[in-house]
């Protein structure tokens, strides 16, 4: 039984996800939040195995939230749920420490399959391409580029702090700021 919590700002998607997860054996929706403020209390209350995070919640940086969630000792698996898909999402999801990315257009069986595999410990992220990494690195300050390399490598915050000779708290703040900068308003998709 996989206990799934949701963060999505649109009520229709929260309701839709809850409905299909309820109907699927082995998956249980345990809670749904519409913004970050409602998310944390819900998380503490429900202690899910897996969190399905809307990639674009207006006013919140889901990337920063994901990283915060994954730096906890008993972190659930985190799946980014995005209406966009491109190479840079693979980079951003890795930076935030997510375990998988699912497109919002994915059909229910595909979604269930992905959630099960990720719960079993697999990582289902779009492949990394050098050009996508270069693009993301180009968006940040030169000071933060080593941070991107370390994060893509999956280095824990504590070790990053040691490598950079900085206080873990400072490093956490820098990562948070970096992820907030990167998760800006998405442009409209191209034809």
């Amino acid at each position, binding site marked *: 039984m996989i206990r799934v919590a949701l963060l999505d700002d649109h009520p229709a998607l929260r309701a839709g996800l809850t409905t299909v997860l309820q109907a699927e054996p082995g998956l249980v929706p345990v809670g749904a939040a519409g913004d970050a403020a409602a998310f944390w209390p819900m998380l503490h209350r429900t202690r899910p195995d897996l969190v399905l995070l809307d990639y674009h919640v207006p006013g919140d940086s889901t990337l920063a939230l994901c990283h915060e969630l994954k730096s906890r000792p008993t972190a659930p698996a985190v799946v980014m749920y995005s209406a966009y898909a491109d190479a840079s999402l693979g980079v951003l999801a890795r930076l935030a420490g997510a375990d998988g990315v699912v497109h919002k257009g994915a059909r229910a069986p595909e979604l269930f399959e992905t959630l099960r595999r990720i719960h079993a410990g697999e990582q289902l992220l779009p492949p990394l391409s050098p050009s996508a990494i270069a693009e993301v690195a180009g968006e940040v300050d030169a000071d933060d580029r080593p941070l991107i390399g370390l994060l893509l490598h999956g280095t824990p915050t504590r070790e990053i702090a040691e490598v950079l000779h900085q206080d873990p708290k400072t490093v956490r703040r820098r990562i948070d700021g970096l992820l907030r900068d990167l*998760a800006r308003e998405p442009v409209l*998709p191209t034809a």
Partner: protein
Amino acid sequence: MSSTIIRGGVPSLRLPPSATASAAGPGEASDRAQATRHAARPAADHSWFALFALTRIGAVLAAVALLIADAATVGDLGLAAVASGWACATIVAYALRPALQGKLVAWVLDAAAVLALIAASGDWRSAVYLLALTALIFPATARSPSLALAFGVGFTAAYGALAAAAEGGLHWASTAGLETFVAHLLVPLLVVVALAYAAALMRRLRAEQARGNALAVEAERRRIGRELHDSAKQRVHAAGLVLSSLDPAPAVRQATDELECAVADMDASVADPGLPQQERTLSAQLTERVRQLDAVADATVTLEGAAPELPPAVTSDVYRIAAEALTNAARHARASRIETVVAVDDGDLCLTVRDDGRGLPPTVRPGTQGLRSMRARARALGADLRIVGGRGGAGTVVELRVPR
């Protein structure tokens, strides 16, 4: 391969303006501004023409009144008649042929005629002096301020020479006479400078207005795009998700396909704002897309053949399938050559997009939506879509066959 993120992770090839939503902004805005400026031209000429017609009629009436009031001779009556005739003729000519308003020849001819009228009146303090001033309106407003000033100086010089040569000469002896002459000499210059300044301001105002309108259109498009994404699209995704969790009966499958197409349509219509896609032929749209990609992608992109006339809905789906295939090839295939072939075979429309790149990845990446929406569109069209990806330089072939 210029695959890139622009802010926060959305795919975009760097395309020329108007090809992508993100790049559409400035380029398109200036195109529109230009279009509006061209459209605004006749309107501007129109208001200057109104000024010309009104002042010329007023001036000729004043001239006639002055000529008749003061012990009219036969010569005065003749002059009044000629002046009235010339005024009417010029107004009619400029009205019928607005292009003349910007023509130097027309200005010179008119100026020569009114100066000749002054000469004929025998005195530089002529009754037709006001009429002569109206000949400066188009030279001052229709073209550049420097040309306006040059014309004004030329006119003043000609008038001064005329006055000096006129019968009786200049009245240098009296201060009042000198003053009157200087005033008469300066008025044309003042008129030209004031009008040229006003015209330049108006041109700038119109340009700013056009730019403001274009920006407003752009902002509105972004707002609609955001709303579509934040609300409508999320609902459609939710409906698609719920529907796809049901047993895959044919009707459910069809409904799911339609929902996927709806999402793709929303993305496409936001990315191509205001382009009346439906009104353009498939060949025209493909030609443009191929040209754009050829300009920005590393690969050479070509198009062969022409599509027959198709219903608008079919045109738009076929185009979007082709555009997706082309974009994928340009963005992911690392190809050196991308060929697009449109042909008619046994009445069916056949479209092939072929590249010599690295083929399709062994497993479809999670979150890949492009291929799925191509397949959904093909199913919705009742068309046959084959996507064959070879490895190791064999490239990828996308074949679409739309039955008649």
